[in-house]
């Protein structure tokens, strides 16, 4: 697993690996919103939690279809399937690699971008915490979706349609946690629910993803 993770990370930072694309996308979305909404800081501060979470979610979505597609195209996926590594571990590792190249940078960049959106000061800690808790679920659900659509040409759009509805709970609780923190309320409940979604998807989806891969490799 470590080997595969290391390889995927190495591939991601090499030319054409797409590392940083999601981050750049997130950056641009968060920069565009103030231009669109206008400079009234009251409104910006109010919508900031939602905008940051939607931005992070869409940025995550960008690179999902590459999770298995590149390996499928060059034949590595079949060879990986015959390797000693179980497909469940493969799915989990791929999701982990996706999170490390997408979710983690997004989480780290979010506070800086929150500044642009005039997010109220008390919410910064919660913002980082909610993204750190929530983005692994985004990667895991995405890996499952990618496993479902792996053999399809132009599977990217279908993948988005499949995965976005599954992202709704994560988005609701994530944005809600930040909003509550911004308004000075306790954010523990949505954060716990967010952690619940992440832990649940980490427990179940590797198996679902592996089953989907087995079907698609036939």
């Amino acid at each position: 697993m470590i080997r595969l993770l290391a390889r995927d990370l190495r591939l991601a930072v090499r030319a054409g690996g797409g590392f940083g694309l999601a981050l750049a996308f997130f950056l641009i979305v968060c920069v565009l919103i103030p231009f669109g909404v206008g400079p009234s800081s009251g409104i910006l501060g109010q919508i900031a939690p939602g905008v940051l979470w939607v931005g992070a979610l869409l940025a995550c979505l960008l690179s999902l279809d590459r999770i298995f597609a590149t390996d499928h195209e060059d034949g590595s996926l079949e060879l990986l399937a015959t390797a000693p590594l179980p497909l469940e571990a493969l799915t989990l590792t791929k999701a982990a690699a996706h999170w490390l190249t997408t979710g983690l940078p997004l989480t780290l960049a979010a506070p800086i971008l929150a500044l642009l959106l005039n997010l109220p000061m008390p919410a910064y800690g919660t913002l980082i915490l909610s993204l750190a808790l929530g983005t692994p679920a985004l990667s895991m659900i995405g890996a499952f979706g990618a496993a479902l659509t792996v053999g399809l040409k132009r599977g990217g759009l279908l993948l988005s349609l499949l995965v976005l509805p599954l992202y709704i709970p994560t988005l609701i609780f994530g944005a809600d946690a930040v909003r509550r923190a911004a308004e000075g309320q306790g954010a523990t409940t949505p954060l716990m629910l967010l952690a619940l979604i992440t832990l649940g998807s980490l427990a179940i989806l590797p198996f679902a993803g592996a089953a989907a891969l087995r079907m698609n490799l036939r």
Partner: protein
Amino acid sequence: MNQSPLLSLDTLACSRGGLIVLAGVSLNIGPGQALILRGPNGSGKTTLLRTIAGLQPPAQGRVATNPDAIAYSAHADGIKGTLSVAENLTFWAGLFGTSSIDAALAAFELNDLKDRRAGALSAGQKRRLGLARLLVTGRPVWALDEPTVSLDQSAVQMFATAVGAHLKQGGAALIATHIDLGLDAETLDVTRFKPDRAQTEAFDEAFL
């Protein structure tokens, strides 16, 4: 031969796209044995190899082998163009829990290309890298699907030598190919196992 076989197939039937393409395949391969699969395009060689490798379930019958004994090699080599030759091999070696890639590099004369980006290799060189991967898997049964595509004469010789050495070490190989490798191996024409019509129709995919 009284050694237990490394791979044995028992009245195996394989399907592709819901159609049975091979039926009643029974064979045993023991250590040191190689079997060449022949047959025209579409006769089911790839399907048979994929079934043996465990990528698809048999439609009927049984594949008796240790699933961790098979090294499968397909038409695509699974090479990452942005990694170097050595990095590609080291990854597979690590995944299969073997340590050294030197023997594999030497067997396919890849030492000079070691630090080249795999994406910059020629088709034949990529194929050699793909075949070198077999050596680092350390697995006894090789299931190879048209391994010599895009190889030149001397590379085919390298491959035949590698297979020969593998057989000497008690390995086995199942090779689908159209050319003569000069190996001391039995040949199996898979058209023999083409199912008759009645059998194909009696089988109902819906019950799977």
